[in-house]
């Protein structure tokens, strides 16, 4: 996404290699090959769900790759005071590190992160994807789900990476179990509150207790069990994935490097959601670049995109379940050690 300086002959070389039969990319990949994606969930213990993702990192001292850390964090909002919305809401933000774009001015960086925030917010925050379990007490309290992503390095294909990281963080997010309580005496709540700092797991710590409006509201909630991380977000299978088709008519290819991004006239971002036992839905779409695209070609591209997105989705899902397993085993081992 960043403007990379490229000479005319480099650009011509990349284009002619992509158009050759069989096509060949600078690093030997096929048109539809992704670079290796590294993924780890649960990287930020202070968040309710988090993930770190890297596309295309080289081994050992090689570095490189597009690297993103995403985290989901829940906050209690008061519906009656007008801060929150009944049923909860989702807010997304993207921060781009100047290290990822060392040649951009800070204004350009702000624009870029605003742009990425908007794509993420419009897609992830769409009502059709809204999780149903963000209500704490109907019409009184609800959760605000903050999804924050930090782009630490950009080696191309940042939008796909962003959505993968977002999906992983949301997949990992746990909503604390709550129990509505009647307001009687302050002591009961005080004693419950004091457990928070002592608890090892700070995930649901401070945000779980918003006692500002205690006096006005007759009913509040408590967390029945501090050791339980809570339940997963409702409909976590639905969170979309993005595939970016880099269009070099008549061909298209996936997972472009910065040099490749600078060499193609058009890019098409497609965000698909795959709900089990329902047809896939196209949640968002964005066409970037100076050229125009035929409607017929667009339809075709969407059909291809759906197919690639499905593959991406399946692979990501497998990896996420692996991560869940890995961390369960790790947690169990640690528990066994403590006893």
């Amino acid at each position, binding site marked *: 996404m960043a403007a990379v300086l490229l000479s005319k002959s480099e650009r011509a070389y990349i284009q002619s290699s992509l158009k050759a039969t069989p096509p060949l990319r600078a690093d030997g990949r096929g048109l539809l090959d992704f670079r290796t994606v590294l993924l780890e969930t649960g990287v*930020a*213990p*202070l*968040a309710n769900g*988090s993930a770190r993702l890297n596309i295309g990192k080289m081994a*050992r*001292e*090689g*570095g*490189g*790759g597009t*690297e993103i*850390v995403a*985290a989901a*964090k829940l*906050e209690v909002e008061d519906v009656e005071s007008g801060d929150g919305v009944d049923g909860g809401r989702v807010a997304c*933000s993207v*921060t781009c*590190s*100047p*290290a*990822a774009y*060392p*040649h951009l*001015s*800070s204004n350009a960086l702000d624009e870029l992160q605003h742009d990425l925030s908007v794509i993420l917010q419009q897609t992830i925050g769409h009502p059709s994807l809204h999780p149903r379990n963000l209500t704490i007490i109907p019409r009184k309290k609800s959760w605000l789900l*903050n999804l*924050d992503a*930090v782009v*630490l*390095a*950009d*080696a191309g294909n940042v939008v796909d990476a962003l959505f993968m990281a977002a999906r992983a963080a949301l997949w990992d997010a746990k909503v604390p179990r709550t129990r509505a309580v009647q307001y009687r005496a302050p002591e009961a709540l005080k004693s419950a*509150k*004091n457990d928070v*700092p*002592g608890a090892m797991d*700070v995930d649901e*710590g*401070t*945000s779980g207790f918003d006692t500002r409006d205690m006096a006005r509201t007759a009913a509040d909630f408590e967390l029945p069990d501090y050791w339980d991380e809570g339940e997963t977000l409702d409909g976590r299978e639905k969170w979309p994935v993005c595939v970016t088709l880099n269009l070099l008519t008549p061909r298209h290819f996936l997972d472009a490097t910065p040099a490749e991004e600078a060499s193609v006239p058009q890019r098409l971002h497609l965000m698909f959601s795959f709900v089990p036992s329902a047809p896939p839905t196209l949640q968002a779409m964005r066409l970037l670049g100076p050229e125009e695209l035929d409607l017929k070609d667009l339809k075709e591209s969407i059909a291809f995109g759906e197919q690639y997105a499905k593959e991406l989705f399946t692979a990501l899902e497998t990896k996420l379940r692996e991560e869940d397993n890995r961390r369960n085993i790790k947690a169990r081992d640690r528990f066994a050690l403590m006893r």
Partner: protein
Amino acid sequence: MSSRIEILNDGGFRSDGRKQYELRDITIDLSQQGTADGSAMITHGLTQVLVTVFGPREAKMRSQTLHDRAVLNVEMSVAPFSTGDRRKRSRADRRILELSAMIASTFEPVVQTTLYPRSQIDIYIHVIQQDGSLLPACINATTLALITAGVPLHDFVCAVTGGVHSTSPLLDLTTLEENDVPHMTVAVMPRTRKVTLVTMETRLHVERFRELFELACEAGQTIHKEMKAAVKERTVALVGAIDAGSKPGVVDERDRDVFMGESI
């Protein structure tokens, strides 16, 4: 909220089970990140900071260059999810600008900037997680990142926080402790034992200050050892790889004609 937590109990243990002078675990990762010239990820307990260094390189804005030395540009970003309460800070946030300025002035006398007139050295700090001792973690990571980038320094800069609970000094404070006891941050250069930064935003009795200050300087030496070990380990590994590549067998071959494909 902190009043209910015992900062130091009768057994001499702190809320996280440490002794008075005990430092938290430090882990250091100096491997290459992205396209940076140097980078370091450091964790002090739950506080985690990633620093990437670019440069010395051509200054982005020519008007800001200095004709006799390089400019140190420190930019800091704090991940919104790094704290217990989510808080998104913009890059122009006062607190962040203040911390950046403090870090820049800490390194100003340490980096040999006069070797690179008209250049710029960019230091990008990412706070991934915070649980107290944020400024020391940033300073320590910056030192390491500058070293991995090959930027000449007079010495390491090693920082640590210290606080006083009634009359007992504590080292390497967590957020919980920082909220409750008067504390300060000290950064030292281990070889000369010179201090490049002392900052305190709370009140502390003069007599306690002296004791705590000396203790913090000593702790800086301990942190120096960890940092030095990490740098050495990486240097040994990389130099080893280079040496293996320059072993005699390979060197000899170097002298033959390089145009091997000439016959084609």
